[in-house]
């Protein structure tokens, strides 16, 4: 059963395209991630699915309902969490939840088991103003508010942006449990490391979907061997690797360098020698498995900080 079905959906603002025509579908009970940097078109796509913005082309159905034609009925079945912290800061935790339950014609009591998992952590602060909560708590409250009317499909636009690392992990645990209970979830994030928590992810950039696959499938799609290079003299190492005859690409990745060799079977010792001759004495070179971010970098040759050599 398909929960979300998108066909050639596109959005243009005048001449600029916020989203080029995209086509994909999300199965019922799937946790589907949209991964991409700011301005990639994630929010536009979510708003079209949430019936808030009209597409300029293509069609989309959510839970079998057309996002344009059946928007009124669809709004009953959607749980939507906008990118910004959209709660009433001057209302308490309990008042916010009660309000959002009431406008969907539900009550906290009747749907409590839907949010028990998350709201349980918020109960001690039920009389605190939402504005005085920490970032992680706010997100949990916003999620509770989006769930309180038992939606069929949950649309979460960058729910973890601006939330600390521990809260992000907890938040994803909650999403996983919700998925396990049968809820269909579409979630967007700029954090590549969160992609691994999804059943399937779509990589999106500049309004284009680059690839849709399982997280492992995406990692496996990296076409060439990837090596991690650690050195105290990162700059010299980077310059040396760029001159290496079989270099495909070099870019900084955290504290290390990610080096892609254009050959199928790279020789670690050869690279080490090359670096040593260039004056990098302490280089540690290891073959590693590509992550989603590496796939992203590979698919987007124009990303800043990357040096395409080939």
């Amino acid at each position, binding site marked *: 059963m398909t929960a979300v079905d998108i066909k050639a959906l596109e959005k243009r*603002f005048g001449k600029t395209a916020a989203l080029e025509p995209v086509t994909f579908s999300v199965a019922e009970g799937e946790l589907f991630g949209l991964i991409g940097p700011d301005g990639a078109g994630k929010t536009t796509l979510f*708003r079209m699915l*949430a*019936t*808030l*913005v*009209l597409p300029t082309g293509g069609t989309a159905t959510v839970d079998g309902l057309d996002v344009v034609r059946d*928007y*009124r009925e669809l*709004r*009953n079945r*959607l749980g*939507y969490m*906008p*990118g*910004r*912290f*959209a*709660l*009433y*800061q*001057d*209302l308490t935790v309990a*008042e916010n939840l*009660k*309000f*959002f*339950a*009431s*406008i*969907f*014609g539900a009550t906290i009591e009747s749907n409590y088991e839907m949010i028990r998992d998350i709201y349980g952590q918020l109960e001690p602060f039920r009389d605190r103003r939402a504005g005085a909560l920490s970032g992680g708590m706010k997100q949990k409250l916003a999620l509770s*508010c*989006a769930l309180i009317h038992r939606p069929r499909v949950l649309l979460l636009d960058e729910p973890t942006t601006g939330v600390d690392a521990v809260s992000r992990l907890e938040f994803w645990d909650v999403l996983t449990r919700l998925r396990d209970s049968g809820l269909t979830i579409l979630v967007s994030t700029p954090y590549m490391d969160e992609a691994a928590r999804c059943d399937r992810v779509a990589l999106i950039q500049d309004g284009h979907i680059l690839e849709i696959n399982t997280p492992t499938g995406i990692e496996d799609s990296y076409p060439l061997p990837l090596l991690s290079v650690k050195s105290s003299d990162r700059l010299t190492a980077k310059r040396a690797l760029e001159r290496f005859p079989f270099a495909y690409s070099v870019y900084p990745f955290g504290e290390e360098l990610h080096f892609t060799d254009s050959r199928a079977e790279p020789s670690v010792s050869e690279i080490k020698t090359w670096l040593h001759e260039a004056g990098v004495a302490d280089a540690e070179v290891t073959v590693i498995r590509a992550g989603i971010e590496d796939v992203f970098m590979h698919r987007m040759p124009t990303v800043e900080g990357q040096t395409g050599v080939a």
Partner: protein
Amino acid sequence: MKAFRGFVIKEFFHIFRDRRTLVILFGMPIIQMMLFGYAIRNEVQDVQVAVVDWAHDSASEAITDRLEASRYLQVVPGIEHQDIERAFRRGEAKVAVTFPRNFERDLILGESPTVQVITDATDPNTANTVLAYVTAAIGTYQIEVLTTSGGARPASIVLEPRMRFNPELRSVVLFVPGLIALILMLVCALMTSITITREKEIGTMEILLVSPLRPGQIIVGKVMPYLVLSLVNVVTILLLASQVFLVPIRGSLTLLLAECFLFIICALALGIFISTRTSTQQVAMMISLAGLLLPTVILSGFIFPVASMPAPLQIVSHIVPAKWFLIVIRGIMIKGVGLEAIWQETLVLVGMTTVFLVASVRGFNVRLAD
């Protein structure tokens, strides 16, 4: 219905938890009422009058007594004619009245003696008013002399100005209707436009839209609390006006409240209309202040009479709802007229309200603006 009730309750929470909103809602009407009632007045009180009496006869003294008896004037004795200007500069007097030598004799002989009245026109309003008082005092004396002398001399035609409805020219009587218009505009239009744009700004409008709430429910839910609070304000102002400032309410109280209700709806509709066209609180506030409050104060006839405005501004004043409301409410409160005298103005207000309501419901987007 449950959704709607939840919405209204939430709006009341917003209002009662925001101290600034509360001050604007309830402090402002009272502060403005006090300001206009006590501080900002057109009428004069205790204006010092220097009397230079070169005649010292019964006629000049009788007129001086009259000036002294007026509660608006206070006679300052002992200022010489050459010191008048200095007295003005020092603020010791605002007006100087000089009686010529042989004043009474010339008066009896019918030689039209000249009484010089000099006013400090730094404040033209006061100067004019005081001049009118002094002229009136001299005028009444003249009539008395003529009558007591048995009409021996041919009586000249004497104009007898009388102020109707507001004989003492008390400005508070004129200000109260304008004040009601101003406060209702402020509370209804300004607050409504801000409260709706705030939802857009903090992002909650997105969630409200993605809920089964209809646009009508969102709008009515938003304005309902302000409607109730505005009625409370109207009653407060009317109570203050009639109990503290003794402003009469000569017409029907029911009609008065009904007209206020109509004007509140009109202002609320304007506020919603503004909020459908703006996306930030700041813009909404600027438009409300510049586009609504200024015309309400300046073009409605609240302070400056519409009739004395240049023709183009008079035309503009027709589209200011407060102008029509002022005619209606002054009619009811001060003249005591009924609906038969003000139905046309009422109809104009009904028409304006309908237009604003239709425009704002149409303009309310069920989706996000692109």
